[in-house]
């Protein structure tokens, strides 16, 4: 399968001013984020990146569309080397990015104008723009709100507008950096539904960075990062079965897996920690209680 994003021996550090200078007495204030990160995202996949704060997941996200450039190694996105400055806009057209706070990524004071923002920047003719804006708004289920002001919308709706603004560019891949972190449960569900539909129906590659394990459980692949390294990389059920390892890096597991893990710890050898969804868990418990 083709890789849409691939990081090879990626190295990156922030140059921090003063503060830490006195602390560790280094001559150069380099805060190393990655040393040699290797991570590829397959075209059309739905990948979740998990990790504790400061593990480098957002930094990785910013490398995917050339907001940050590697200090060493190579980053390829949508077939272009991100350090090739002449390709900057090609990369950003192909790799869209959605951020945490929907309020801070909406530019215009009318929903449809905001969705059109990227297209206006790209110089798309008005007739085509109209069609693409409408399509994008329909894809996230916000078409009825096209003439509203973003300030009248709920958090989940705003985030869907922000996603529509990205979809309108028709990117091959959307990188979402904790898009649900500031939303209420209803808003989170709306956004997750939208993301999953885009992946399934439109074939858009999704890279989702999140703190929520139940969101990670819905992906095809889960990548767990810690201190700039990939420590686990597999299907959700495989990854979550490593309960202790996840705990070590400060992560939880879905509640169903947690329950299975505790049952196993307490002597039920048949409890399977590969169970991640509530349905599977309920089925298992039913069998258990019936004494099968």
């Amino acid at each position, binding site marked *: 399968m083709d890789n849409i994003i691939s990081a090879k021996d990626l190295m990156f550090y922030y140059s921090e001013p003063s503060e830490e200078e006195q602390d560790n007495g280094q001559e150069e204030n380099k805060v190393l984020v990655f040393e040699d990160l290797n991570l590829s995202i397959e075209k059309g996949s739905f990948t979740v990146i998990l990790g504790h704060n400061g593990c480098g997941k957002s930094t990785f996200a910013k490398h995917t*569309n050339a907001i940050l450039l590697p200090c060493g190694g190579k980053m390829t996105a949508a077939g272009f080397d991100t350090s090739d400055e002449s390709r900057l806009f090609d990369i950003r057209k192909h790799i869209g990015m959605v951020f945490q706070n929907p309020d801070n*990524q909406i530019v215009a*004071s*009318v929903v449809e104008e905001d969705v059109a923002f990227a297209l206006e920047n790209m110089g798309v003719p008005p007739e085509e723009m109209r069609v693409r804006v409408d399509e994008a708004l329909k894809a996230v289920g916000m078409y009825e709100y096209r003439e509203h002001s973003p*300030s009248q919308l709920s958090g989940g709706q705003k985030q869907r507008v922000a996603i529509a603004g990205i979809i309108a*560019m028709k990117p091959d891949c959307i990188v979402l950096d904790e898009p649900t972190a500031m939303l209420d449960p209803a808003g989170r569900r709306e956004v997750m539904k939208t993301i999953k539909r885009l992946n399934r129906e439109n074939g858009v590659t999704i890279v989702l960075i999140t703190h929520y394990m139940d969101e990670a459980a819905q992906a095809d692949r889960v990548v767990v990062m810690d201190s700039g390294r990939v420590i686990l990389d597999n299907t959700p059920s495989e990854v979550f079965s490593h309960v202790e390892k996840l705990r070590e890096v400060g992560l939880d597991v879905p509640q169903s897996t947690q329950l299975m893990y505790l049952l196993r710890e307490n002597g039920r050898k048949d409890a399977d920690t590969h169970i991640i969804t509530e349905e599977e868990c309920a089925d298992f418990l039913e069998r258990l209680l019936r004494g099968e």
Partner: protein
Amino acid sequence: MLKDITIGQYFPMDSAVHKLDARFKIVITAVFIVMIFSADSFLSLGLAFLFFVIAFAASKLSPKLILKSMKPIIPIIIFTSVLNIFFIDGVTVFQIWKIRITDNGLITSGYMIIRLIALICGSSLLTYTTSPIVLTDAIEQMMKPLGKLHFPVHELAMMMTIALRFIPTLIEETDKIMSAQKARGADMDSGTLIERAKALVPIIIPLFVSSFRRAEELALAMECRCYNGGEGRTKLKSLVSGGSDYAALCLSLLFLCGVMIIDMGRVVL
């Protein structure tokens, strides 16, 4: 309490005035302002006011709105008219001790009141019937020739768009910060003027900090959406002018001529 602020409030409605091209509306408003300041008699001022009444009737807005927009400027009107009444020389009409009111003073302050009211009415009508975004677009288009002189037209328009977009967000944020500071025992409603001004500092500083953070994130999000300045940009909605726009402009110019003829006639007589 901050939610009541009505800067450039827009009332969407289906009317002839709403449908006019925003560029023409700006020009017509300018013509109207010229009208009220060039009018030199109550008759010509009345004619200028008639133009406003026609425009307002065509906008289908409720007259209450105009009264509401008048509220904040009442102190200014009173202040200027009082100054005019007392400090302009002329034939004394009324005198108590050293304070005297002259006929010229009364007339000048009368003009002043009418002009101020007309000015506010005219510009309110513009913002009431034109959405801020369209207004920004219109200003951008009208200033485009200045771009040739390296005047940052697009950047200014972008700044206005973003400012308009963030007004509600920042108002909401201010409300939150105020509540948070009140919860910590901040007292903002009592004390002398200086004390109250000082009490604003713990509100303004967090607001500034968060605005900078927002600005940084917004800039990042704009970059991600291929923002690259004004060059090669297209627009989702472009402004189109038609026959009715020219007709409205002609009408306003006609009234301007009327006003000028009345005044000239007066001078000649």
